């Protein structure tokens, strides 16, 4: 936890008009304060609270109350720069640049496939002046993580080639159906690229094929990267430290808003939601040819299937569990951002008794020792006027995606 806090202090310095390398060396241990009994617990708790407040701020910026069109069927290639540049030392990515980037890529893949249940991701690495495909486009998290953890895949070699990587990704993305999005995300460490031809032609063909390229620069800004992202309507970020890398990657997890001009290629997809059934005698699964007693039945052709999600091998109906589909509904019906109630605002018109209010304030004064620095710690839903504490505010927006008050809940 202390490490993360250090990283965050670093990012503050970076944002405060001064570059990371211009800042004085930070003695993070000097900031620790002992209380009367010599314990650090109070200070650590205050740091944790500060972190929560910052997370709330980030959430409030990214969440909007108005649902936007989002393409939820995504096809994305994640391009990893595995050239020697990733082995170069970086004091802002610990323990080493390689470990840090691959670890965060792994977390990203997992997170991406959780949030986009019908999405697919593929991995491409560029090294030795070429590019190789680690995994094909698939929704299976385990396959990608195995590829990232494979030792021979973790060896940095030679020069990177942006053009080769983009071309391989482009050619693979050409086959995906038009109703899904086509995206490439590049984690680029090098400041050079070793290309066999004219990269402008690649950019033109990417544009023509409606592929969105986003690049995350892990060292300094490069003009060609910025140009590619601008032309293909992607986002170009250069990260400052690990915390920033995590934030930038997290911003790529949420499905992007769909542009109105693209709506022509949208389609209605027929899907089946099979119920699980148990068979009196073992039945052969149509997908794997193995006998099974508990399985799913395709609602159209009654074929037996052993696992979801899949395409029916007989009638090619897309079979999914409705639970899987429901995972992305919170993008459609988001919880509105809660409004912070200032400390001075004690008289209220909502349905709280005075005693309950006083209790609430006392509890929060107890919890927030740094109350005056960090706001009141009281947040209100604009729809149902219920009050929430910081913990519940973040929980409602980050994980639960339900407002307890709007669903008829009481204050607690």
């Amino acid at each position, binding site marked *: 936890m202390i490490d993360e806090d250090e990283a965050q202090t670093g990012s503050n310095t970076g944002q405060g008009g001064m570059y990371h390398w211009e800042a004085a060396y930070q003695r993070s241990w000097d900031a620790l304060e002992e209380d009367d009994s010599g314990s650090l*617990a109070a200070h650590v708790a205050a740091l944790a609270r500060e972190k929560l407040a910052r997370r709330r701020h980030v959430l409030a910026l990214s969440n909007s109350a108005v649902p936007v*069109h*989002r*393409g*939820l*069927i995504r096809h994305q290639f994640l391009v990893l720069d595995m050239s020697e540049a990733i082995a170069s030392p970086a004091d802002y990515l610990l323990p080493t640049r390689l470990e840090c980037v691959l670890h965060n890529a792994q977390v990203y893949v997992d997170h991406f496939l959780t949030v986009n249940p*019908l999405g697919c991701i593929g991995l491409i690495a560029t090294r030795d002046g070429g590019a190789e495909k680690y995994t094909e486009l698939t929704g299976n998290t385990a396959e990608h993580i195995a590829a990232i953890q494979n030792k021979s895949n973790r060896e940095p070699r030679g020069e990177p080639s942006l053009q080769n990587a983009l071309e391989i990704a482009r050619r693979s993305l050409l086959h995906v159906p038009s*109703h*899904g999005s086509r995206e490439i995300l590049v984690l680029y460490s090098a400041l050079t690229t070793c290309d066999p031809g004219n990269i402008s032609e690649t950019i033109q063909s990417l544009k023509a094929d409606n592929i969105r390229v986003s690049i995350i620069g892990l060292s300094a800004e490069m003009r060609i990267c910025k140009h590619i992202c601008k032309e293909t309507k992607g986002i170009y970020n250069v990260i400052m430290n690990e915390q920033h890398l995590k934030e930038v990657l997290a911003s790529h997890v949420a499905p992007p808003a*769909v542009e109105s001009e693209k*709506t*022509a*290629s*949208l*389609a*209605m*997809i*027929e*899907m*089946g*939601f*099979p*119920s*699980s*059934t*148990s068979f009196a005698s073992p039945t052969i699964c149509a997908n794997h040819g193995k006998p099974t007693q*508990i399985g*799913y039945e395709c*609602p*159209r052709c009654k074929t037996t299937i052993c696992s*979801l999600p899949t395409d029916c091998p007989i009638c090619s*109906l897309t079979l999914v*569990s*409705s*639970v899987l*589909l*429901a*995972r*992305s*509904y*919170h*993008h*459609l*019906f988001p919880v509105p951002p809660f409004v912070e109630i200032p400390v001075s605002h004690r008289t209220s018109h909502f349905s709280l008794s005075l005693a309950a209010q006083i209790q609430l304030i006392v509890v929060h004064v107890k919890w927030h020792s740094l109350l005056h620095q960090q706001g009141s710690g009281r947040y209100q839903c604009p729809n149902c006027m219920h009050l929430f*504490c910081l*913990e*519940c505010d973040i*929980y*409602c927006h980050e*994980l*639960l*995606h*339900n*407002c*307890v008050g709007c*669903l*008829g*809940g*009481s204050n*607690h």
Partner: protein
Amino acid sequence: MDIPLLVVVVDLFPSPANSVAAKGKLDSGTVERILNQLLVFINAHLALRFDGRVAVVAAIAGRGSHLLLDSADLSNASTDIKNTGGMYKQFKVVDDVLVQKLQQLLDFDRDSEENYNKQSCLAGALSLSLSFINRVKRQHTDPASTIQARILTLSVSPDSPSEYIPIMNCIFAAKKDNVIIDVCRLLGNDSVFLSQTASSTDGIFVKVSDVDNLITVLLHSFLPEPSIRKTLCLPGGTLTNYSASCFCHKQPCSIAYVCSVCLSIFCSRRDSCSTCGSSLTQQ
């Protein structure tokens, strides 16, 4: 060492006083019988472990969800502690607080008829329970132990289609937090949403048709902690209906048309998506 935290969600659908109990609704006598058996179950949970913790959330149709009881916070209980009548003090306090709070809730504008025609607020109660569990976990600072939370839903009210998405959100939050949601369906009627909830969160789904048998089911199936359950042979079917409910008519359907932008489900082909407004071509 895990500290067991049990959150009981009591989802009641009481019918108006002095009227014939309609289908799926409970008369006051049945509520009392359920409550009696629930108290025995709660006391049994507290008796298993000295540090066991219980919270009760009531979801009363038309009256919102309320946190009735938290066994770790009984400081303001107005019970006569001296006169426990030979009962273990903690049981007595918990029972009294719960009965008193529930009584208040049920007596509250008992006469107004329109309150009884509202839909269930189970999703709100589950959200409240999950937020409560999250807060307890956050406030728990002792590194030597962790909170092992689970939710038991005693449910009566029928599925209300408008709650589909909030309940699904609860399922994903519960999975992320490792919270098991068990479902005990009273009066034996089925619930598609709740059977999905139980099977997706590794909980068990049991239907109880005779209310007087409730205590047997509670003690045998729902009392064991998740760590012990692996060695037990518990009831609950493996069959779950994964059919979705369409957004247009709120009807369950097994083959549907899904908008590629927002994944809204429709039971028939249409030219535009009513959720996100995109115009869709036929595939």
